């Protein structure tokens, strides 16, 4: 009997490994190991022609071995921290705008008849099926100085006596495109959460004297806390590291951490400093996400 029991547990163990093995291996090879490499790289000197300087002295190169020079360099000049702060503000603003726009939409879909919900969700994720860069180039045309949008804006600004402005290559353009790119990632988790709410809770709230406004703020909103957090994570984390949108639609002053990192690896060819920036980015993103998780856990305790 115990033999059969053992055989059964051995086979479940095997199944577990077969199921979790491939993704685990994938993550190990492509996340964990590169992460470790990056940590090591951040403590090295850059090579003369890119790459890293050798660990041991070869005679031809002056700098070798380990150093904390890149970290010192980062904190020695405020402009790097400034880019970080700007990126976080940009990403937070994107996330908030997405949340404000996605919430009513997700609520509308979740409260629609069951048959039309799937179609509506399909429409929400439809933009993701076209190439992201094509979308960004489309925004370049739409926001361009010759486009109707900019004209309308300037007419309005003129009415208030404000000098004409340019949309393209401005933070506004970056923000518009970022919201465009990430909006579906906010709608999806919110919808998934809102759709699961038991409608009888709203009946109960109404029965006990809550008007429509109170029903939303006292029941629906707190119960959607986990959905909002998931949406925050899905939008904020990639948005901080975004480099394509600011590069194509932003001005010279609108670069974000992603652009900075990309430059270190591809243009300046300073791999150690690029690695340092990447690690600091990862750590600070984790910190912000942890803080928000704490906050939302306090708000929506058992939602």
């Amino acid at each position, binding site marked *: 009997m115990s033999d059969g029991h053992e055989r059964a547990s051995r086979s479940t163990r095997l199944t577990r490994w077969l199921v979790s093995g491939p993704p685990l291996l994938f993550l190990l090879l492509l996340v964990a190991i590169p992460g470790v490499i990056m940590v090591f790289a951040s403590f090295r000197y850059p090579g003369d022609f890119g790459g890293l300087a050798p660990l041991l002295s070869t005679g031809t190169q002056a700098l070798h071995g380990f150093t904390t020079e890149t970290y010192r360099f980062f904190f020695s000049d405020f402009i790097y921290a400034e880019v970080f702060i700007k990126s976080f503000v940009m990403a937070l603003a994107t996330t908030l705008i997405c949340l404000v726009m996605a919430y009513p939409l997700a609520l509308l879909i979740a409260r629609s008849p069951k048959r039309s919900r799937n179609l509506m969700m399909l429409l929400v994720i439809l933009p993701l099926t076209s190439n992201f860069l094509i979308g960004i180039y489309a925004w370049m045309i739409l926001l361009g100085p010759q486009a109707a949008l900019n004209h309308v804006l300037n007419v309005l600004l003129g009415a208030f006596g404000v000098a004409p402005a340019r949309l393209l290559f401005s933070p506004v353009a970056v923000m518009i495109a970022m919201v465009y790119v990430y909006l579906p990632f906010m709608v999806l988790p919110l919808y998934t959460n809102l759709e699961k709410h038991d409608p009888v809770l709203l009946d109960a709230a109404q*029965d006990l004297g809550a008007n429509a406004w109170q029903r939303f703020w006292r029941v629906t909103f707190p119960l959607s*806390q986990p959905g909002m957090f998931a949406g925050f994570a899905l939008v904020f984390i990639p948005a901080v590291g975004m480099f394509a949108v600011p590069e194509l639609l932003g001005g010279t002053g609108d670069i974000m951490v992603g652009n900075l990192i990309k430059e270190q690896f591809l243009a300046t060819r300073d791999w150690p400093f690029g690695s340092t920036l990447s690690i600091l980015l990862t750590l600070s993103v984790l910190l912000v996400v942890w803080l928000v998780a704490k906050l939302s856990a306090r708000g929506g305790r058992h939602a």
Partner: protein
Amino acid sequence: MALLELRNVTRRFGDLAAVDDVSLAIEAGEFFTLLGPSGCGKTTILRMIAGFEFPDAGQILLDGKDLAGVPAEKRPVHTVFQSYALFPHLTVAENISFPLRMAHHDPADIRRHLKDALEQVRLTGKADKYPHELSGGQQQRVALARALINRPRLLLLDESLAALDAKLREEMQVELISLQRAVGITFIFVTHAQVEALALSHRIAVMNQGRVEQVDVPSRLYSHPRNRFVADFIGQITMIPAQVEQVGRGHLHLMVEGLGEIVTPLQQSVAAGDKGVFAIRPEQVRIGVQAELAELKNHFAGEVHSLLYQGDVSVYRVRLPNGTLIEALLPNSAPGGAELFKVGAGIRVGWRHDAGVFLHE
């Protein structure tokens, strides 16, 4: 004036009349039950009183005022839902004080009412727990306290005991009765469980297919069902096809094919020649040997067909000469007397001349 009055209320879903021309009057302080099988319209009536459904025809009056156009949140009517519908993100205290906070009572007032409410349902120690940390019975009591805290004119209970197990359900029944007596608020209870309805209610409306079949106090409903549906739905009953042979003074003489004459109490609007059924409850049927039943007006030979032992009582099914199976209930009061008669044994069944009821087709 009745506290709540339904006047010819009809509610249709498509072609189906879920509630079909229902009129009811419920008095202040009453424990009133809507009883019927699922789909009979009882929950629809409750939802119309609460304000979640609206009648297609007819009126609902509370204290003589028409409720039409009054939204659910403005009605002095609260509901205890079948699933309790406690807010999972709020504590017991926050759940119970919800109606007061929605009405913007001041905090001191809320605290005082909350304390009383928690005491009333014996949950004082659980104020800071979340609903999922409570047992089913405790959740039920939170739902009750929440619905009663701002003293509505009317409390609606929608199958509120259905989710509890049998033992707890019985405890909650006793608790509900004493709670209703303590707060003096009118309760309207919806259930498909006839035992529950009989135990709890002052009056019961038996519903079937959107219509009210009979409204009466539990004992009258049980002893004098108005028709076959009510007779069948409430309690156990044996029905034997019969025809009225003669309307005598004080009783009816019925003729049953293949069996003979049955004497039963006189009823209104029954004439000789009427066809219908003779209906009798198992506890009214006695079972024994010839001599014991000799003084009874109605007695017949039979054969024990089957026996259902239920602990406190045994239910015998006896086959009468015309093939009818009649149920007889025998308390197992004698020591070791659980099986007085063996299956297949020839015995006699009998009942008093004032037992049973004749029901028209």
